[in-house]
């Protein structure tokens, strides 16, 4: 029975994937893609990975979807070439077909081999969990065992925001705050904001013991910021370069600082002091949540300021 559900899920997954690539309308393609993200969240739950499910829903489907839709609105005016399934004679089609089929074939062959992992890393995780300062293994991995990965990953996020700011033209008019004029909505959202904020903080706090953590919390926070922006409150903060960039690097800076301190005491980089790991992890996660939320929000914000301008055409 379970297998049937799984198989159905896989079929839906593949069907949505094909649809998102090959429907005529780009808008519908994006919609199918977002839908795919939600189905993926279900799949992750079936895979016993609630953390990923949460992240997939919030980040994978949520943020990516919003960004794609947002971009789509700006791309309307471009010469939109429909998907070219009809161009069967083109060498490109055959190249694509052969590559796609080749990938499937090779991967299928590879994963059909019986597995006998030589190293049982998951045992090591559970053995060392008590020394990690948190009880949720994924948080322990992300912020303690493999915190170095996470450090670099945050740098990747900052970089992405940086590119966005690079491409913002200096001569562009500042963001016009096109907030929603409805006063009722305004008021509701104002009420909503602290709640969303609380949810975000809860996710962060919960991450120490159960699914959740800085990234999911950051994504929720970003949503809060977006709402905040849409109701037109204090977005001047984001216009100021110092606050903008300060917000981005806050988490990273905190991380580097906390990580470098042990170097002074003759400990390796990113080592937490004995028995206080939990506190430091929470501290870092707090910083990361704020920064991630801010970065995702400013990606959204910065993209607002480069509308398609016909006069730029060559």
């Amino acid at each position, binding site marked *: 029975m379970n297998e049937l559900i799984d198989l159905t899920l896989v079929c839906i997954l593949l069907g949505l994937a094909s649809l998102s690539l090959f429907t005529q309308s780009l808008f519908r393609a994006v919609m199918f893609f977002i839908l795919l993200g939600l189905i993926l969240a279900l799949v992750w739950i079936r895979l016993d990975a609630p953390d990923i499910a949460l992240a997939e829903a919030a980040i994978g489907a949520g943020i990516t979807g919003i960004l794609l839709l947002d971009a789509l609105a700006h791309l309307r005016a471009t010469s939109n070439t429909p998907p070219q399934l009809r161009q069967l004679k083109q060498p490109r089609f055959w190249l694509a077909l052969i590559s796609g089929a080749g990938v499937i074939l090779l991967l299928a062959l590879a994963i059909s081999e019986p597995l006998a992992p030589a190293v049982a890393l998951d045992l090591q995780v559970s053995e060392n969990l008590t020394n990690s300062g948190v009880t949720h293994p994924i948080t322990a991995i992300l912020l303690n065992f493999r915190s170095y990965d996470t450090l670099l*990953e945050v740098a990747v996020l900052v970089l992405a925001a940086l590119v966005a700011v*690079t491409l913002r033209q200096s001569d562009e008019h500042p963001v016009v705050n096109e907030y929603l004029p409805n006063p009722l909505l305004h008021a509701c959202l104002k009420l909503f904001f602290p709640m969303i904020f609380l949810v975000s903080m809860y996710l962060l706090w919960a991450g120490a013991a159960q699914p959740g953590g800085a990234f999911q919390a950051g994504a929720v926070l970003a949503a809060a910021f977006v709402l905040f922006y849409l109701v037109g409150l204090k977005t001047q903060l984001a216009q100021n370069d110092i606050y903008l960039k300060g917000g981005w690097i806050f988490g990273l800076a905190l991380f580097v600082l906390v990580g470098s301190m042990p170097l002074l005491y003759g400990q*390796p980089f990113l080592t937490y002091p004995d028995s206080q790991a939990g506190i430091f992890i929470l501290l870092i996660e707090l910083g990361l949540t704020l920064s991630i939320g801010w970065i995702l929000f400013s990606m959204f914000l910065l993209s607002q300021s480069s509308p398609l301008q016909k006069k730029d055409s060559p």
Partner: protein
Amino acid sequence: MVHFPMAGLVVFPLLGALVSLALSQRWRTLMSFALILALLLNNALLLLQFYSQGMFNEAMGNWPAPLGIELRIDGLALIFSLMSAIVASICALYAYVYLRPAQLKLFWPFFWFLWVALNSIWLSSDLFNLYVGLELLSLAAVGLVALSRDALSLAAALRYLFAALLGSIGYLLGVALLYATYGTLSLVELSQHFSLTLSSSVALGFMFIGLLMKTAVFPMHSWLPPAHGGALTPVSALLSALVIKASFYIVLRLWTELSLDSAPTSAGLLMGILGSAAILWGGWMALHQTHLKLVVAYSTLAQIGYFMLIFPLLSDTNPHASHLAFQGGILMLLAHALAKAGMFLAAGNLLFCTGQKDLHSLAGLSRYRPLNIFAFGLAGVSIMGLPPSGGFNGKWLIIQSAMLQSQWQWVLVILLGSLLSAAYIFRVFSYTYQEVEGGDRFKQPSPLLEWSALSLSVLSILLGFASMLVLDLLPSHSVVTQ
């Protein structure tokens, strides 16, 4: 403080990135150069540490591999770290003078993130950590390409981004398969359990395709010339000299650590054929460009081909010859980093002098801006592989290795490639030697620009005399081939 020099390689550039984002213009510059000095010093300390205690590992967060991530300093990592320190410092100096203040402001953080990524890749011995490092590197590089913000560089950046993303995913697919098969991400531990089964071969295949795509190996190269040729000059230098080396470095690491030299020779042969095609195609295309920086960019394509020739020559049947190829490859990589950075900077100076991109506009420069032509020429000597230069020494070792293993086809390719490279470099020269009417109508680049280009070129020549200093850092061949 024993942990310091190694962690410094990551911490200092990270600090640089933070500082360049947070501080005002004057402090940004000041702190950046202070941190560059610190990094150079840090590298020197690390070298001393390596001399005194040899290869060593360090567990991040005090969690030893395979649970945690271990960084490793061995000869190879050290060579690449030193190489990036030298090239990056000089490029930064160049950029400081060359770029407009608005560009410079954006340049610094990208530059620092690039350096973080490079160092993290040189040091890492964890497959997934390498993936994150690669992504960081690619995004920083894409950002740098987009720095000039015109349509041409945007297209180049997009092309580059898509190639890089596809490459990363290929790599990650391989990592996924390897983890599922062996249950570990640590390269050291993997090498103890590794055997060349079907799924491992598929995994490595995906990883190599991804990495070679990021290295722009023929025929996955088409993104490189516009990106490297169209970027701002100091960026071109960084990209060509360092960034493409990172993914190649991972290929080399995997190949040697997983003892693929005992794999069926067809894999090595395939790498060699791709390399040969790159050498000939890159050289041929460079010969037919009309835009100076594109000549240099295509020359990078051809040079990547030389690096690929290491693989068919690494074999466990003849350890001596195999080791010669390894040493030769490292020398070539290093010489190319120095020479290509020097060449791009010199080319940037020449373009600055004329204000035009066309090769014809170079006429008369040899008379009025001899120092820049000289810098270009010295770098050219190493690129052509003529003695005395690091490029020649590398080529020599590879040829020796091929001869000892009777793989004459690579000798032939190398020689043809050398003649092609001589043809495209001297073609540039012959334009500069033309005498034209009208006197000195060229702009004069600042001495700092001229000397930074020249210093890199001179280093690539000096490497021809100091190769042993580099090669002594590498393990003897019994260790390389295990």
